[in-house]
């Protein structure tokens, strides 16, 4: 299996009078088509590890390779470009831009990338939303949609630039059981059917059970 993401002995420490270690000496590989669940108690460093793997934060020590690119020496703009083209994020809260419709939110990453024309971007956004069962929500604002629908729009937005890796931070944390099940199925499908790597941080054991692999973090370390 292709290794899409590799972390080697990464640690993240917050400097200060009393330094705080968020992640310590974690090594991890994520492969194409793999659904990886990261679990652990609250404050154990799950989300911090996800942010490091998602290039939103830089490790204090260690190395992260995205495909064959060593990312720890990349400048901020280069990391932004890597996120734009290779990574998609889904957060606990949908984090949709409130002034934009569902369709416009999905279009944002594509417009920023600028590879497609406006008509193609609109068509792809519509297709992504339709695939996630939101064909009738295209023109709605986030405040006009339910939590489950908004989270599916967030997933569509994460998929907009066809990334190889989807990183999800407690994607079902704010959802009811039914919506949570739908989102879990979608994420699992992204790995199994579409061959993407999905890394999901979750407290939900049932959700974690659906993953191909579970990594448990305690006190910043893999147990």
């Amino acid at each position, binding site marked *: 299996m292709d290794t899409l993401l590799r972390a080697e002995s990464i640690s993240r420490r917050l400097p200060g009078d009393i330094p705080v270690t968020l992640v310590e000496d974690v090594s991890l590989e994520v492969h194409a088509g793999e659904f990886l669940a990261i679990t652990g108690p609250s404050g154990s460093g799950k*989300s911090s590890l996800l942010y490091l793997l998602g290039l*939103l934060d830089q490790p204090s020590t260690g190395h992260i390779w995205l495909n064959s690119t060593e990312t720890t020496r990349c400048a901020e703009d280069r990391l932004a470009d890597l996120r734009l083209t290779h990574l998609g994020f889904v957060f606990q809260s949908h984090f949709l831009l*409130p*002034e934009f419709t569902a369709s416009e939110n999905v279009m944002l990453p594509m417009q920023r990338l600028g590879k497609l024309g406006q008509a193609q971007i609109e068509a792809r956004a519509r297709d992504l939303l339709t695939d996630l069962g939101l064909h009738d929500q295209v023109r709605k604002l986030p405040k006009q949609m339910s939590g489950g629908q908004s989270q599916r729009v967030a997933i569509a937005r994460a998929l907009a630039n066809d990334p190889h890796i989807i990183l999800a931070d407690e994607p079902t944390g704010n959802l009811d059981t039914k919506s949570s099940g739908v989102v879990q199925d979608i994420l699992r499908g992204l790995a199994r059917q579409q061959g993407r790597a999905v890394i999901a941080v979750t407290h939900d054991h049932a959700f974690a059970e659906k993953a191909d692999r579970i990594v448990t973090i305690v006190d910043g370390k893999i147990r």
Partner: protein
Amino acid sequence: MNPLLISIAVKHLLARKRQSIVSLFGIVLGVAFFLTISSLMLGSENDFIHRLVDNTPHINITDEYRNPRQQPAETMFPTAALDVRSVKPETETRGIRGYIQILDYLRAIDGLKASPVLAGQALVSFAGKDVGISLNGVVPEELNTVSTLHSYMTIGSIDDLIANPDGIIIGSELARVMSLRVGENLNVAATTGQIHTFKILGVFHTGRASYDETQAFVALKRVQALLDRPNRINTIIVKLNDAYQARAVASEIESHIGYKAVSWQEASEDIMSTLMIRNIIMYSVVSAVLVVAAFGIYNIISTVVMEKQRDIAILKSMGFHASDIEWIFVTQGCVLGVAGCAVGLPLGMAMMTAFMGLSFRVPGNSDPISIPMDWSWYQFAIAGMFAFTAATLAALLPARKAAHVQPVDILRGGS
């Protein structure tokens, strides 16, 4: 600029309509007041200069010397160390010597008109009242070409002095104070003790009360006789086709004839510098309005940046660069600046038009005056550029702050 960033910026502003309108209102008022006040300043300055240029000689040649006359010994021995003491000036009749030749020289200069004047103090007596006046002996045929007095005549004409050399033209205030009427006789006593009776031929009214009360015009020959200064004048009034050449022409004339030639610019230097200081003060005050408006924009965009931390974080996590985020907020300042100009400039134009229609009386002026307004394209350009720059700079600081938002710091904060 990237249309995506513009669309995000505009949506942010539209999402906060009330705050956006308030800060926009500041810029609109700033632009409109800047335009109106600067037009008022320019109008009053131009009006003042226009009056100065029209109503005063462009060059006034008087019977004085700018520098003391050189002693013959100094002329003879230019390199010697001379000490000439106890020089006693020759007692002579004051006035410009050889003025006929000087006038011939002046009239040979292109675009220049000149006329001689002999002015002196006199006392007019009528019905038991005595008033001191300045008696101006003029050549009536020439006065119209170098003075605007004819345009202020309310009764009679300057040309009447040609037909009646014993006539006098007085100001409306003098006529009012002394209850004089056209056709009546007026006794004028000169400082020499001579008294001459003049017939009032005309009355002028310039609107400047002191001028209208103290100036009177008669034929030059009569004044020369009255003041006992035959063939003398003490002033030559010069008008130029191009008034702004006055300084250079005056310098050339002075170097040629020796007598002091004062251009209107030199005579009004203190006033011109006062005008400049007034302009600096007024522009500073009006600019302050725009600076205050810019603070309003700074405030709204800072608020938006604070409120949009989560959106900034999510945009950055998507792959937007820090510079994209900065542009989004700078664009908001630009949009407010452009919109402020788009509304403020026409509003300023409307205010200028309204001001032009106003007229009122001021103390010391007997006629109602209207507000002089003047404008040109560069005032609009300055107002627009200043507003746009102020709005953009006001947005720059919060925009830079937004660009430095670390997504992890916000995302760690949770939902």
